[in-house]
């Protein structure tokens, strides 16, 4: 293990001459995006393109008795009005289940509701028109007769015998249940000197992407081929799903993904309105565009969290944790989302609670229930913020109860840095983590003792500041264990094809995708380093199922670790191919040569022998001058999938320093720290900014973001004025540090970093608020978001 910015790195295979690994290289797509020259689907226009808008159910649960479209059809510009039963002739329904989530069940979901709407916002009728405005005008004139049905909104009572069953054919409202028991839990609680119990409540929120979901589908009747321009994280997954549900072969479907204005897990799912758009294109034989507007984003983009976790920790007087126990309940809307299911988040909570600690005794129950609200599914850091807040909330409550410093408590219980490989109490396997090194580095970075002294001093002046911590683990680089084994056609492997062009530049085609986080920069760095060329001569192509190797895309913090390794291996392979040509021209041996900084050189002396454009010129235009029987291969493809470990777990620790205004309940965030270990850091700036962005989204959950529903299943704040996304003005300065424990599963050694910030931030803010209020005898706050009202109530002020 090495601490990145403290020690010079040891020379490894990554430290080739002109290596870009570990350097903050600017992204190649930056200038284009900053100049407003991005190519977002929202801006795309094709000839004969029509626009679709959807009539959406205003009720959380209602039977659709009649849709009278006569007036709408006569509206200027209208091309077609299409109902659910009409569209069902073109596209088949889907069921969001996976075979490795035992017992998970859901009902068939259609692109447009057939006879019943199950949440406020479900599409019930499509209007295709020459413009979006005309489509909306026609929707105004649709006469839809609804019969309101009773609703299931409270997850807590969804399983009661007297509660309506949303899908009667399923028997009950239970989507999925998981029980886990490890060690001797009852005995461990009995042996504990103190047991702390708390109920944690996580508000439902959503990932507000800068660019809403956008899709243009074009069925070309002449080619019998569908081209879909879509802002998605997983083009090949979508290719499979479009083909499957439109009864096409996959080669008849091309998915093109250019620039995507943010995803955060929102754009990796099947959305009924996007499936409907594709089906409408097939039906109408012309390009059809759908861009979710901000109002429909709030009621249709997947929501996340909304967990209630009753949790318990046992602890000895000396701080040793004896056991963890959780009972998690989450409501996921009326359908399990396809194809990744809505059971994964609760499953992750079970996997991750207690994850950083040695404690072997663990009991968990997770139940996932249906309800008449918008669907819930995987959003950035799936399950992590919940598991981390529960675990770290319990750890700090227990530390306070037995009177031990919260960091001391962690030092005592975190898995030792020399204790790997090992498994956690939930059964998850760790290759190599660095909890203790990360903690000590954090303590140093933040000046812990000084801050504690300042906190004590300020309390005398009735200024209440708090420090909160959270050690955490993060699931990254998933193997087929995540989805593939459950039957979903979501690729765990990824590929890269590298080609030397005719002037000696490097063209990289990769199966992973870019949504603004810098994937293409990382691929360019890795390919340039492995091959031996200046990054300015590397061009990266992603997001096109016709032109990139088959791959999973970008989600679950996999792009750098998996897509990057494929590019690394392909770069090495292409170097060998090019050196074979060069050696042939120079009448030398490939192993006596190397490629450095875009030149073929003597491996020993570094003396220039031939330029890459000269190699390319000979190979492409004068192959006749090469020896008989020698064929130049200036393309190389390599694939990679993690095999040794189901997931490359990473770890880290965060801290928050904040001030609570005890008269208003307002929380002012002062500073935030994160020390994270994602293995090899390819681009420090991109990693740091990923972590900062993730922290901001975690702070959103802790203090601001909340999809507020009433008891009738109506979303009350589905707009940008009433749904509070975190804004720059309220964010603290964030200091990021690294510990580097590369994974031995790949040569690059990179693990994922995209979700670490979101995983830990809610926990540290919650813990810091409780730390601030502790001398005031306030009630413990275990509810998110911690609004001024929540804080004032804990203080007994209202």
């Amino acid at each position, binding site marked *: 293990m090495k601490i990145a910015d403290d020690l010079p790195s040891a020379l490894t295979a990554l430290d080739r001459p002109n290596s870009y690994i570990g350097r903050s290289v600017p992204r190649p797509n930056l200038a284009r995006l900053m100049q407003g020259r991005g190519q977002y689907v929202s801006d795309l226009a094709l000839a004969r393109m029509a626009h679709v808008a959807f009539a959406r159910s205003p009720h959380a649960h209602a039977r659709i008795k009649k849709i009278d479209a006569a007036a709408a059809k006569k509206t200027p510009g209208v091309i077609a009005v299409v109902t659910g039963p009409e569209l069902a002739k073109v596209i088949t329904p889907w069921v969001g289940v996976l075979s490795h989530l035992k017992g998970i069940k859901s009902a068939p979901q259609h692109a447009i509701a057939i006879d019943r709407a199950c949440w406020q916002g479900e599409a019930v009728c499509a209007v295709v028109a020459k*413009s*979006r*405005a005309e489509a*909306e*005008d026609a929707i*105004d004139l649709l006469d839809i007769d609804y019969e309101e049905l009773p609703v299931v909104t409270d997850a807590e009572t969804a399983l009661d015998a007297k509660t309506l069953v949303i899908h009667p054919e399923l028997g009950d409202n239970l989507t999925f249940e998981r029980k886990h028991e490890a060690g001797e839990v009852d005995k461990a609680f009995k042996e504990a000197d103190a047991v702390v119990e708390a109920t944690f409540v996580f508000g439902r929120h959503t990932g507000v992407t800068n660019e809403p979901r956008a899709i243009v589908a074009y069925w070309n009747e002449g080619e019998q081929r569908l081209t879909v321009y879509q802002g998605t994280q997983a083009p090949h997954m979508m290719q499979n799903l479009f083909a499957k549900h439109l009864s096409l072969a996959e080669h008849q479907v091309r998915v093109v993904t250019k620039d995507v204005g943010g995803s955060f897990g929102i754009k990796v799912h099947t959305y009924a309105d996007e499936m409907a758009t594709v089906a409408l294109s097939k039906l109408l034989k012309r390009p059809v565009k759908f861009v979710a*507007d*901000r*109002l429909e984003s709030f009621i249709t983009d997947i929501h996340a969290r909304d967990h209630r976790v009753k949790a318990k920790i046992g602890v000895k007087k000396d701080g040793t944790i004896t056991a963890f126990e959780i009972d998690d309940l989450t409501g996921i809307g009326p359908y399990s989302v396809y194809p990744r299911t809505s059971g994964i988040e609760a499953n992750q909570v079970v996997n991750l609670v207690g994850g950083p600690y040695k404690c072997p005794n663990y009991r968990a129950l997770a139940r996932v229930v249906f309800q008449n609200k918008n669907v819930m599914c995987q959003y950035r850091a799936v399950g992590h913020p919940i598991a981390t807040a529960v675990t770290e909330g319990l750890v700090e409550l227990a530390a306070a109860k037995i009177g031990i410093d919260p960091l001391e408590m962690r030092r005592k219980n975190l898995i030792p840095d020399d204790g790997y490989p090992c498994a956690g109490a939930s059964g998850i396997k760790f290759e190599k983590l660095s909890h203790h090194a990360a903690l000590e580095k954090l303590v140093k970075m933040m000046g812990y003792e000084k801050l504690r002294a300042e906190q004590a001093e300020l309390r005398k002046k009735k200024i209440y500041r708090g420090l909160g911590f959270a050690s955490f683990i993060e699931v990254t680089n998933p193997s087929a264990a995540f989805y593939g084994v459950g039957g979903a056609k979501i690729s765990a492997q990824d590929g890269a094809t590298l080609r030397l062009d005719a002037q000696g530049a490097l063209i990289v085609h990769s199966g992973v995708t870019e949504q603004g986080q810098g994937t293409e920069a990382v691929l360019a760095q890795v390919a340039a380093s492995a091959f031996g060329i200046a990054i300015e001569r590397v061009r990266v192509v992603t997001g096109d199922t016709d032109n990139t190797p088959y791959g999973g895309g970008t989600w679950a913090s996999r792009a750098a670790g998996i897509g990057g390794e494929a590019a690394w291996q392909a770069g090495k392979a292409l170097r060998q191919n090019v050196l074979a040509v060069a050696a042939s021209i120079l009448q030398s041996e490939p192993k006596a040569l190397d490629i450095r900084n875009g030149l073929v050189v003597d491996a020993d002396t570094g003396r220039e022998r031939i330029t890459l454009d000269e190699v390319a010129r000979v190979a492409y235009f004068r192959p006749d001058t090469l020896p008989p029987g020698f064929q130049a291969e200036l393309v190389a493809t390599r694939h990679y999938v993690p095999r040794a470990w189901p997931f490359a777990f990473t770890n880290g620790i965060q801290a928050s320093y904040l001030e609570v205004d005890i*008269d*208003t*309940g*307002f929380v002012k965030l002062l500073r935030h720290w994160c020390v994270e270990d994602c293995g090899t850091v390819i681009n420090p700036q991109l990693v740091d900014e990923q972590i900062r962005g993730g922290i901001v989204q975690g702070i959103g959950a802790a*203090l*601001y973001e909340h999809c*507020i529903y009433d008891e009738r299943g109506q979303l*009350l*704040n589905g*707009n940008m*004025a*009433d749904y*509070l996304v*975190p*804004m720059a*003005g*309220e964010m603290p300065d964030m200091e990021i540090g690294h510990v580097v424990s590369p994974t031995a599963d790949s040569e690059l050694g990179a693990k994922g970093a995209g979700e670490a910030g979101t995983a830990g931030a809610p926990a540290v803010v919650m813990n810091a608020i409780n730390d601030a209020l502790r001398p005031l005898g306030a009630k413990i706050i275990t509810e998110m978001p911690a*609004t*001024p*009202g929540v804080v*004032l109530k804990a203080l007994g*002020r*209202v």
Partner: protein
Amino acid sequence: MKPRSFDYVRVKSLAEAVIALARHGTEAKIIAGGQSLVPLLNMRMASPAILVDINALAELRGISLEGGSLRIGALVRQAEAEGSVEIAKHAPLIAKALPYIGHFAIRNRGTIGGSIALADPAAELPACLLALGGEVEIEGAKGARTVKADDFFKDLYETALGPGDVLIAIRIPVPSKDMRFGFSELARRHGDFAMAGLAACRDGKSARLAFFGVGSTPLRAKKAEAALAKGSLEEAVAVLDHDLDPPDDIHSSGKVKLHLAKTLLRRIAPELAA
């Protein structure tokens, strides 16, 4: 999120505006900065048949001192007001309030008159006008009239403005040397509408307290004003129970809002002391 279609007229004189409004009655809406109206149009929560654009009306611009009062034209942008020396000098309460309105981009377009005319109960400027005892100049089909702030705000988004009326300007009495001002609001994020806010001024013993975000309109807390006149802050805070009865909203209960209103009064009180 596309508005229903509407007609549009950009009027060149106040008279033309009044005629256009009279012709279309409740079917017409005035557009100036558009910072509230345009979102309402896009969400199809408002669908006027015609928009009357008053941005070309020179007589609605400008900030001037006229006979003991400061006159601020309805079309003065909030950003322009923020940089105004006259407002800083003669209406420091408004100067204090302006940075709380939305964000720079909003204040660049949003107008003083638009904010008063819309009368959002959680907005800053209506409360300032009320606290300062200002007046509103209105031009309508029946000619010009002036309405005192105390009589202007009627109910939720309801003011003394009728369908044919144009808000021309607001007038603020130039304060005495001894006048003290206090302004504060509590919003979850900077630029949001306030959970609770207070615009206040005090001249000698007499205080005017205008709370916002705690009712259907900006509200004078007259019992608390009387208590302050007697010199008792604690009593003023206590009687807010009777002055205010904030309704619950999605972000907080009425109880929380009342607590915040009391906290604001306590915090602002030192600024009001001579």
